[in-house]
């Protein structure tokens, strides 16, 4: 639907490219000031830029919604203009990128506000805000890009920022190792994404998302080799960035970064970039049903793997990391079964309650001098009520506590969509259901262990307003955000799906409303059952014998290591690479040339032996030589 030309469209267009430009400007200011700016100024720039971006986003949202389902496009300049490829730096705002932009700007504003107090004692204050602003800018570029290459720029930009922020406290080598691991593993995915780009650009001539997808639908028959290959490669990129099987080992280690980083990057925004990519390229994925099935399968497998792994973690942040991996598994499941808007809906709710959980966890740890191990915390609900209540709300939303939490609505929609997916829907639904059971167990295990039971640590003082405000706002959102999309039985509001209908195809769900209610009730019962189990085991400390038994402890250790994937990759990829590079450090080809030179010296040594001053030996050699010469004359 062409946008109506008019003065207000052009202001909106300028507003559109201002949204990513502001954090970028913030980054430049902080980077060029190179740490000389005083803390309040850095905080002001950091938080201010994201706040302004959030405001502009809201204004844009208001305008776009008033436009009906229009698309706002702005092109800044032509990036690459050679014979074979035309790429422009331009942003487009449709309902999908609007939702993403709103969530990204809003959540990052809250997290920036939180971290302005959380990082108060840290000496790299302005450096932190510089990287955070660069991250928000890259994420916005990724979300708003209308050309796949520009999306790839944002894609790599967020990867870089995640590297810089995970390794923020660079003095500790293990942080550096975790940061490098994150960047390299995501880079493997990015390379697959790049090859996908090459394939698309070569065969479809352009990388601009709209025309390219249109061209693909025209040229490529559904299910043929090219779209399947391209979709698989893009899936590779998405799997890398969203920490899904098989490139998921970097996310748990990424918790080495400061908590606001984990909250923003490794919970709310970056890890969902893969989900956005698949949603944005849904037309291509629809041309490759086998890949869509793979997406669903990967989602289901990852959500189970991560859920069980979260059960065995001691570190509070690693529990949340595995939980993020699991929830993104749900989003992939939704994408796989074609419920595009359900995935985005879950992305939104997940962004809120997972950010809330991380910030609450950060608030807790901040007060008990950075103790991560949950078994060394305990009974903190009286000393840290604010952290307790926000963590509790977050956990409830994560566990999909029926009716009152946002998580319930979004997860239920996904489960319902999975139920309706014809080939293999049942299996996916069961996997989702099992995940829905395990999730409350592991999160309430953390709740009961950390906030209930015997008190181990003496937390110190209260929280400032810059921590309380984000926590409260996120808590409210974690509870209310679900009401934009409710199932039939509960008022069948479908605001979000109608909003997204213009960009994402909708699928009428075959099942009747009654069937949906039945499925919903099953999910409710499971959620409550999970919480009960968690309370029974960890609240009252029951089944101690079972937990201490050898097989359970072995299983726990296996799950602690993330089902052994780390060990597997280390043995099969990392060690061989290190071994090969170490033995070839002196470059075997170079030693080859060295050997050549040594040969020369050896020959010189031998020949100079013959010149030893004995005349008769010379005469003998001359005679022998002439003899040979004559012999040659004889036969030649």
């Amino acid at each position, binding site marked *: 639907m062409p946008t109506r030309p008019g003065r207000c469209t052009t202001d909106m267009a300028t507003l559109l490219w201002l949204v990513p430009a502001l954090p970028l400007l913030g980054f430049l200011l902080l980077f060029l000031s190179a740490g000389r700016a005083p803390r309040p100024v850095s905080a002001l720039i950091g938080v201010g830029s994201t706040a302004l971006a959030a405001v502009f986003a809201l204004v844009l949202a208001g305008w776009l919604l008033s436009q009906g389902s229009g698309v706002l496009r702005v092109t800044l300049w032509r990036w690459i203009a050679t014979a074979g490829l035309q790429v422009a730096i331009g942003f487009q705002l449709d309902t999908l990128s609007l939702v993403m932009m709103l969530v990204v700007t809003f959540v990052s504003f809250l997290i920036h506000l939180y971290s302005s107090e959380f990082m108060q004692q840290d000496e790299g204050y302005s450096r932190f805000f510089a990287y955070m602003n660069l991250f928000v800018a890259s994420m916005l570029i990724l979300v708003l890009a209308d050309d796949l290459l520009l999306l790839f720029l944002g894609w790599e930009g967020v990867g870089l920022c995640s590297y810089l922020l995970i390794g923020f406290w660079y003095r500790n080598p293990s942080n550096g190792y975790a940061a490098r691991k994150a960047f390299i593993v995501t880079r493997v995915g990015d390379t697959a994404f790049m090859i996908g780009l090459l394939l698309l650009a070569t065969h479809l001539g352009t990388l601009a998302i709209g025309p390219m997808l249109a061209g693909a639908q025209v040229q490529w028959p559904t299910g043929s080799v090219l779209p399947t290959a391209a979709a698989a490669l893009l899936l590779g990129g998405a799997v890398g960035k969203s920490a899904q099987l098989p490139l998921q080992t970097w996310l748990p280690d990424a918790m080495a970064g400061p908590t606001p980083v984990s909250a923003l990057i490794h919970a709310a925004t970056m890890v969902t970039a893969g989900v956005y990519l698949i949603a944005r390229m849904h037309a291509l994925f629809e041309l490759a049903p086998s890949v869509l099935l793979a997406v669903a399968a990967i989602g289901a497998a990852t959500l189970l793997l991560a859920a069980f792994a979260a059960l065995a973690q001691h570190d509070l942040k690693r529990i949340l990391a595995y939980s993020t991996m699991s929830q993104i598994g749900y989003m992939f499941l939704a994408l796989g079964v074609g419920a595009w808007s359900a995935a985005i809906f879950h992305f939104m709710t997940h962004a809120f309650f997972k950010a809330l959980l991380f910030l609450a966890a950060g608030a807790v740890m901040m007060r008990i001098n950075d103790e991560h191990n949950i078994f060394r915390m305990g009974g903190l609900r009286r000393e840290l009520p604010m952290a307790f209540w926000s963590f509790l709300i977050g956990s409830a939303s994560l566990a999909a506590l029926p009716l009152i939490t946002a998580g319930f609505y979004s997860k239920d929609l996904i489960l319902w969509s999975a139920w309706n997916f014809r080939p293999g829907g049942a299996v996916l639904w069961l996997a989702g259901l099992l995940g829905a059971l395990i999730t409350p167990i592991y999160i309430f295990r953390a709740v009961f262990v950390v906030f209930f039971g015997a008190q181990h640590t003496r937390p110190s003082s209260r929280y400032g307003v810059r921590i309380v405000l984000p926590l409260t706002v996120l808590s409210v959102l974690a509870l209310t955000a679900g009401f934009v999309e409710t199932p039939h039985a509960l008022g069948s509001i479908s605001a979000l799906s109608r909003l997204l209908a213009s960009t994402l195809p909708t699928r009428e769900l075959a099942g009747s409303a009654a069937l949906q209610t039945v499925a919903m009730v099953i999910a409710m019962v499971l959620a409550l059952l999970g919480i009960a189990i968690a309370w029974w085991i960890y609240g009252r400390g029951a089944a101690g014998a079972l937990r201490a038994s050898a097989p359970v402890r072995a299983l726990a250790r296996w799950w602690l290591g993330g089902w052994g994937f780390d060990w597997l990759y280390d043995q099969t990829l990392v060690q061989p690479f290190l071994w090969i590079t170490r033995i070839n450090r002196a470059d075997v080809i170079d030693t080859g040339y060295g050997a050549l030179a040594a040969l020369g010296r050896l020959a010189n040594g031998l020949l100079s032996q013959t*010149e*030893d*001053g*004995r*005349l*008769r030996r010379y*005469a003998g050699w001359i*005679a022998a030589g002439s003899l040979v010469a004559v012999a040659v004359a004889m036969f030649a």
Partner: protein
Amino acid sequence: MPANTLMHAWILAVVLFGLGVAGLLARRNLVFMLMSIEIMLNAAGLAFIAAGARWGQADGQIMFILILTLAAAEVSVGLALILRLFSGTESVDADAARALHD
């Protein structure tokens, strides 16, 4: 001069040359070595003369004359060297002069 006599002349030259080489290699006394070289040169001259006779051209003799001059120059220098060596190492042993090589 019948052809086979010329052939015998060449055979003579070759044998003389062979003796010269044997003498050169066998003797350790520098003077004897020089003499053997003279024998070899002479054999070569003989071969040239025989060739000249065979084709009736004087070239052979001219080559012989050149060989003569060569031999003369060579002997003079050789013997001077031998005397010089002798004054140094008191012996005409070819191997005694090994120190000269480096």
